[in-house]
């Protein structure tokens, strides 16, 4: 009787651990992706030969991915020092973005939906930001209105930034030499 019980406990523990690991792997950010600096490049989300983790995540979440010929989505959950993005802090995004015809920057929650904000400003476009004479720019990501380019965030849970490059000069496969243009996210202050 104890043998059967033991076998049952082992089986249930194994199943539980396996399912938990699957869930954790699909909601974490770290598996099998190209990276540009701290940014994770979702280049293969819609590809037929995407890895099984990406495949499972896209199918389960119902995302309609960008095609490789259209654009790329870059995502990060951390600032340039590796700290989780906190909506109580002010971050400076810039001073350049990877070359593309057009880009948009959005603050999203862990499920990939925009953060609630009173102004209903969910994304900033490359066409509407103020730039320095040399083309550099700074976007301030903060809960309260900020002078210059401001992307509002809200809530108390860690968030992520999604940078979409439309018609990028950067392809998912060839990012090795492009590190210099990875935009940084510098934490200015918190609270």
């Amino acid at each position, binding site marked *: 009787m104890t043998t059967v019980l*033991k076998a049952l406990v*082992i*089986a249930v*523990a*194994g*199943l*539980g*651990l*396996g*399912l938990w*690991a*699957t869930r954790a*792997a*699909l909601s974490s950010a770290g598996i099998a992706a190209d990276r540009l600096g701290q940014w994770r490049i*979702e280049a293969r989300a*819609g*590809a*037929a030969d995407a890895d*099984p*983790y990406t*495949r*499972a995540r*896209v*199918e*389960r*979440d*119902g*995302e*309609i*991915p*960008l*095609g*490789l*010929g*259209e*654009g790329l*989505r870059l995502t990060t959950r951390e600032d340039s020092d590796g700290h989780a993005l906190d909506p109580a802090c002010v971050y400076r995004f810039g001073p350049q973005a990877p070359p593309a*015809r*057009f880009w*948009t920057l*959005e603050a*999203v*929650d862990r*499920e*990939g*939906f*925009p*953060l*609630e904000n009173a102004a*209903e*400003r*969910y*994304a900033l*476009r490359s*066409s*509407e930001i103020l730039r320095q004479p040399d083309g550099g720019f700074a976007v301030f990501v903060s809960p309260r209105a900020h002078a210059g380019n401001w992307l509002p965030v809200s809530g108390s849970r860690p968030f992520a930034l*999604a940078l*979409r490059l*439309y*018609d990028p000069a950067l392809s998912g496969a060839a990012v090795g030499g492009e590190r210099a243009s990875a935009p940084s996210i510098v934490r200015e202050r918190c609270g």
Partner: protein
Amino acid sequence: MKAAWLARAAYSLALVVVIAALTHFAALLMIPAVAERDAFARVAALAPPFKTVALPAASPKSRDFPYADPAVAAAVCVYDLSAGPVRAHAALGRASFASLSFHSRRGVVFYALTDRAANRGRMEALIVTPEQLRTLVARDDEDNPTEDLRIVSPTTQGFVMARVLTGGAGEAADAAAQAAAMSCGLEPITEADK
């Protein structure tokens, strides 16, 4: 005595890990097959076949399509190739970026083109099955080559998505209208070779 107990505990732990690994890989490979709310299912719930439907703008409240760009107006058109090839086209407007992407029933983006690839002011493509492509090629007139961009869909069903960037908050309505002007419709082979 203690050694025997330790060995049994290690054996049990190893069993747990092996079962966990098997479960993990089985679950991972099964999710795409059993996911009922994949992108195609969500799109098909909004849009009947061959009818262009605008997707709701991304906002914290509309939670159907994660990672949809709030700065982009999108429309979808579901197609079914069982009755013949399907022509998809989108007109160009004043938007600074527009694209068409072709999604299989299994969620694979099998083709995408942007307004850079537009021909005479429109983005257009003929979606075909491998058999339909063979039929069309067999009927092609060598002296009068087709101008169609033929795209082979890996599945009989799928959907076309039009994305149009909204240049600013005030241009959202224009972009939505441009995206919704996309269409997909049956084009029987008998007419295609006339």
